[in-house]
């Protein structure tokens, strides 16, 4: 049998070696800064909002100002200055140890990449949003869609976007819905179904839509892809984290929520001698 000779083919990487290929734009020194084809100095700064340019940078599409205002409102909805919220408390802990505001903000933002809250929940929320619309289009009733999220006939439905840590109900939904309406956005297919699901869930379990339950279908209705949505909201907790950082950094070090030794409930083995090396 003829021995197979392996020939390395790394030509793909060679085409990228020593160069950066970009479709997003860049700084042509002495000429202009291009951002997805727009001249940043001439066409964007002073003319477009920060959130319009955020969408442009991430998606390549410059949205209407009103859509950018909706995204800004969503960012405001996660800007609570409350240091009990996990990502915010990390900001406070950074402030009390005098880490830089950039380090503390990055730490807090990273914390929000969580399965329980913040940007980290987005992809799962979008998957649910898209799935329930698919089931509805296939002819299922909303009741049956909800039942499909019950592990057993007697267990409650597990639907991300329709429960919330610490509290049931979400004070942000009505305000955000009014804001999007005032800006001229109608409820699209995804968001309308989310409201139908909420109506039944409120009767069955008392759980309503949370912020994720609103923004995932809202963004889907606006034609964003899941990855675009995740990227758009990735730093949205920034403001609340920095509020908590600032307060702790302005107070004496380690004065934020200090603990006695006995405030920790140690449940490990009792004190024991270290064995000698064998």
């Amino acid at each position, binding site marked *: 049998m003829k021995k197979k000779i392996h020939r390395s083919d790394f030509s793909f990487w060679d085409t990228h070696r020593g160069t950066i290929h970009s479709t997003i734009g860049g700084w042509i020194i002495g000429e202009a800064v291009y951002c997805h084809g727009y001249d940043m100095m*001439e066409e964007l700064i002073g003319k477009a909002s920060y959130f319009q340019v955020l969408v442009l940078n991430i998606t390549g599409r410059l949205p209407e100002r009103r859509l950018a205002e909706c995204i800004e409102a969503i960012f405001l909805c996660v800007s609570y200055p409350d240091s009990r919220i996990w990502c915010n408390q990390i900001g406070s802990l950074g402030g009390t*140890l005098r880490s830089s505001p950039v380090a503390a903000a990055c730490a807090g933002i990273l*914390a929000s990449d969580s*399965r*329980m809250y913040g940007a*980290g929940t987005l992809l799962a929320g979008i998957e649910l949003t898209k799935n329930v619309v698919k089931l509805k289009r296939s002819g299922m009733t909303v009741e049956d869609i909800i039942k499909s999220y019950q592990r057993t006939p007697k267990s409650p439905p597990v639907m991300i976007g329709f429960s919330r840590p610490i509290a049931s109900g979400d004070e942000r939904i009505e305000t955000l819905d009014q804001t999007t309406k005032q800006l001229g956005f109608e409820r699209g297919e995804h968001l309308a179904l989310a409201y139908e699901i909420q109506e039944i869930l409120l009767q069955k379990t008392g759980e309503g839509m949370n912020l994720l339950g609103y923004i995932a279908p809202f963004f889907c209705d606006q034609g964003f892809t899941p990855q675009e949505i995740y990227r758009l909201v990735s730093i949205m907790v920034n403001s609340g984290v920095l509020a908590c950082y600032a307060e702790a950094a302005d107070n*004496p070090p380690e004065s934020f929520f200090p603990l006695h030794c006995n*405030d920790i409930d140690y449940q490990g083995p009792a004190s024991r001698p270290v064995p000698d090396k064998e």
Partner: protein
Amino acid sequence: MNQKQPIVRKRDEQFATRTVTRIWDEEPSAENPYLARSCRCHGYDILELARKRSFVDVLFLIFQGELPSPNKAKLLETLMIITMNLGPRHPGTRAAMNAGVGKTNTAHILPISLSVISGSHLGGEEVVEAMHFLRKKRKFSPREIADDLQNSPRPLKGDWHIVPGFGSRFGDIDPMPQQTASLLLDLQGDWKTLQWGDDFSKAIKPHNLGWLSTGVTAAVLCDLGFHPRAGAGIFQILSAPGLFAHGLEMANKPLTAMPFLDEEHYIIEKKDP
């Protein structure tokens, strides 16, 4: 082009055409230049190092360029054990635990907590500043330096770090750093900075001040020959195991496993005008 815009010209700077390092040498494989067939750390083959030397030896090597003497290796290893865990009440560890219990992606627990311990209070920046202080002052008498400093301004509230790495914690001398400094001084070797720091801590004792954990780390790093700019990062590397262990311990526990203050204990006050 808009005539109002100032003329922007690229500076005539010569950038390197290839990235330079003295740390790592990779020999390309004969078939594929993107793959290495052997790697050397400061000239030593990594597989040979793995066979013959300890983790601590190679950690020292990667930063300093030479393998440590047995005394230095022992000093670094002892510091690594001492600094391995800042404890569950330390704000850096609490950040890790917060991330864990909050179901943050576990890959983020370490960078979160390392960012929190990067600061100038019991963090990486304080280690750097303490190393600068020790390098600058260790040629003088510790008692004279302490005497010169005793009238420096003391904060009205909270702890006083009379200089970086030395001061009070929760209003008192923190007993653990004093003990760890003694333990390290008992190790074989001539640890001049550590000894100077210990003499300085005794000189400031009457003011109810002493070693801080960052000071002990800084003194050891000076005696091991590290430059202050390495101080923050080495402190973070050394503290990383405890931070991650505590974060990970919380990662599979329910959200209720840590306190969440009720409204009675979360008090919103009016700011003084």
